[in-house]
């Protein structure tokens, strides 16, 4: 059976999204895969609409690039779930929904009569995904965790940054994005279960756990060797006393060049050392080593001190572009530390036509968005809708789907329910 042009993987499924600004990405993943996502916004507008950057610096709830980043392919309805009318409407929506994703504090929705048990009573097939910093229960479950606090408590900061200064977070907030992505994954595993059992369930996501899984082998290094992994700036600890270097200044910025042993990286370093020699900047000691047979975590502090200076001199003599061009022809693991402009101009992304422009009747110029996160041969991911305006689909849903009379909708509007 050949799919139609419009086939998408998750088209039969309705998702209700009640998440805060940093978890919007969860249902965006499902929306991009074809699900019908209703973003439920407070009648005053989702707080994410207040976050910049703003398109052409127009500070306005319908011009937030942050909102647009995570709400393509979604529809919007407004609803105040703190009102009894609002709770009633939500339950009506729940009865025909397949997923509901929320990121309230543990117990927050239950206090409104909208906890998992309440919603499952309305629709036993519903899957509810709850994304919180630490999970629904436990000693820290009630702790407040903006991104900085969460990244610190996930172990990620201690190992990032320069040794002589404070630990650092990733420069764009990722704590909740990890949880949001995990929410989409957990939702789909629960969905697979539903196809076997016919019932839904509650998916309880911890952002702290999600980020703790981004610590590479640091937890295992403590568990097996009692090593404390420390931040090294341009270097990275690969084990208790061994290191690799990653960041190198070049003529017009910085590059990453993995200087370590191990099968892949080792061959690359050997090729780099040969390039240095070809360019008349060779080093005898470097040329005497075979990095491919040195293990991944085999380079000690002493070795580093000896080999780093000649490599630094070579890299500092060239630009990002020169280094990248030389690296690609020699299959060396070296890449520029890209700025946002570099990312836009990246020849690989350009060749794959990654960026997507969407036009909008109210805007003078098309808006550039990121492209799909996967190429699917039978059901290509598409940008089906521009990010929604506040309550853009209120009539579609309340009038046309739920059958509310226009007078009722007006009343709900007047009393601030929608």
């Amino acid at each position, binding site marked *: 059976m050949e799919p139609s042009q419009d086939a998408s993987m998750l088209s039969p499924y309705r998702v209700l999204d009640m998440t805060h600004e940093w978890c919007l990405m969860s249902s965006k993943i499902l929306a991009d895969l074809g699900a019908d996502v209703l973003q439920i916004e407070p009648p005053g507008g989702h707080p994410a609409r207040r976050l910049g950057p703003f398109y052409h*610096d127009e500070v306005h709830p319908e011009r937030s690039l942050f909102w647009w980043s995570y709400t393509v392919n979604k529809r919007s309805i407004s609803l105040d779930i703190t009102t009894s009318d609002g709770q009633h409407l939500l339950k009506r929506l729940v009865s025909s929904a397949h997923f509901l994703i929320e990121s309230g504090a543990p117990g927050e929705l239950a206090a409104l009569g909208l906890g998992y048990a309440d919603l499952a009573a309305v629709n036993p097939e519903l899957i509810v995904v709850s994304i919180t910093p630490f999970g629904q229960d436990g000693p820290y479950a009630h702790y407040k965790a903006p991104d*900085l606090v969460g990244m610190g408590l996930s172990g990620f900061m201690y190992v990032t940054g320069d040794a002589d200064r404070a630990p650092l977070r*990733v420069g764009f907030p990722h704590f909740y994005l990890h949880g949001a992505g995990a929410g989409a994954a957990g939702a789909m595993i629960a969905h697979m279960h539903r196809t076997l059992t016919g019932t839904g369930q509650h998916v309880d996501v911890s952002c702290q756990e999600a980020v703790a899984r981004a610590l590479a082998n640091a937890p295992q290094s*403590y568990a097996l060797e009692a090593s404390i992994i420390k931040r090294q700036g341009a270097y990275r600890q690969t084990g208790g006393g061994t290191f690799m270097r990653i*960041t190198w200044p070049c003529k017009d910025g910085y590059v990453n060049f993995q200087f370590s042993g191990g099968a892949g990286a080792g061959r690359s370093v050997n090729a780099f050392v040969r390039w240095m020699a070809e360019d008349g900047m060779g080093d005898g000691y470097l040329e005497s080593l075979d990095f491919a047979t040195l293990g991944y975590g085999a380079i000690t502090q002493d070795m580093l001190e000896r080999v780093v200076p000649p490599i630094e001199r070579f890299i500092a003599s060239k630009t990002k572009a020169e280094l990248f061009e030389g690296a690609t022809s020699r299959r060396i693991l070296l890449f520029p530390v890209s700025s946002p402009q570099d990312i836009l101009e990246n020849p690989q992304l350009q060749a794959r036509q990654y960026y997507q422009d969407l036009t909008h009747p109210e805007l003078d110029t098309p808006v550039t968005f990121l492209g799909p*996160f996967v190429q699917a041969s*039978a059901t290509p991911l598409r940008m089906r809708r521009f990010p929604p305006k506040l309550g853009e689909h209120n009539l579609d849903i309340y009038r046309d789907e739920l059958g509310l009379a226009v007078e009722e909708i007006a009343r709900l509007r007047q009393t601030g329910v929608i």
Partner: protein
Amino acid sequence: MQPLQGLHILDFFWVAIGPMSTSYLAEYGATIVRIESQGRPEVLRHAPPFGGGVSGLNRSAYYANYNANKYGFGLNMAHPKAVDIVKRFVPWADVVTENFTPGTMEKWGLAYEDLRPLKPDLIMMSASMLGRGGPYSRQPGFGPVLSSLSGMTGLTGWPDRPPTNPYGAYTDFVVPKFALPALLAALDYRRRTGTGQHLDISQLEAALHFMAPPILECANNDRESQRAANRHPAVAPHAAYPCQGEDRWCTIACMTDTDWQALCQVMGHPSWTQDDRFATMHGRKTHEPVLDELVGAWTADWDAYELMHTLQDAGVPAGVVYTNKEIIEDTQLAHRGHFVYMEHPDVGRHPVQRSEFRLSQAPAEHRWPAPNLGQHTVQVCQEILGMHDDEIQALIEDEVLEVDTRAAGGK
């Protein structure tokens, strides 16, 4: 009944990003057969820490973290007969996974177009660094590099110093968040329609969604964000503050006036907090360097944990900056059962990190530790491929199939 019971995966994934993705599937009941070759053991098998501190292909706790609950099938991919063995799996496999450099599977004659005739509804997932096609498609890569190509590195670090990579092969732990929903969605689509497909991931293109706002800012406003260490564009205090002891820190982030007032209360309203400069969020942001010094002078007398508990009890967002040791010992992660301790003869007792979500009706299961190279070759040949013992023996003698290397002293 486990959610993914009966799901069959033929798994060529290696390093962290791939095996981490399939580890979720394994926890929830999928049958995963990993193809590995002794001639080119995968990188993580060489990565520390090792059981007993002795390196060896079956001793890595880093490898073990991602490969519990999977079958290890030893196949010498360099042998001319290897590809036929792979093809014998395909009718059994719901999904074939791989994250080699583009061209690798094609070179072996195992591209999606080659496998589809054997199983028309096959789902194949490829996850190369930069995707198929394009001038850099075949460029070899490694995790930390994608942090840089995606802009994460450029925005991380001190403004007066070079940028610093987020720890580790960071994007390896970002991409599974996209790969897993995509794979499960494709399985559902096939369940409904009978249609399989090739899911081709560019790890860069997926990871960029974690950086969407700054990239959209550059694309649409022609403006580039700059790194700002731990600072927030609008909020102060917002930093990691020093505590008692060496290299001990506690983050404090007063996101609202209320948070700030609660902090002042805990501090005992020292006179400097009454200064006009700090009366508004805007003022605190404008005078952030002085503010950070003053707050830091106060936190320096505190134990990091006591500070966190005291502040959180007062409603102030604060948290210890955990070391890897403190992650292993954390009471919240223990409450969640995040670390599942497993035993392996060569790795020893080691922590496996489980999935970060809890399904109320479907517990994750950790049934056996990561396989040795070739540990399950014979069993899989018998039970999945239906081979007779004499054929299996012949293929072992021919050095097509490889069996458990433990007997060779764990090397």
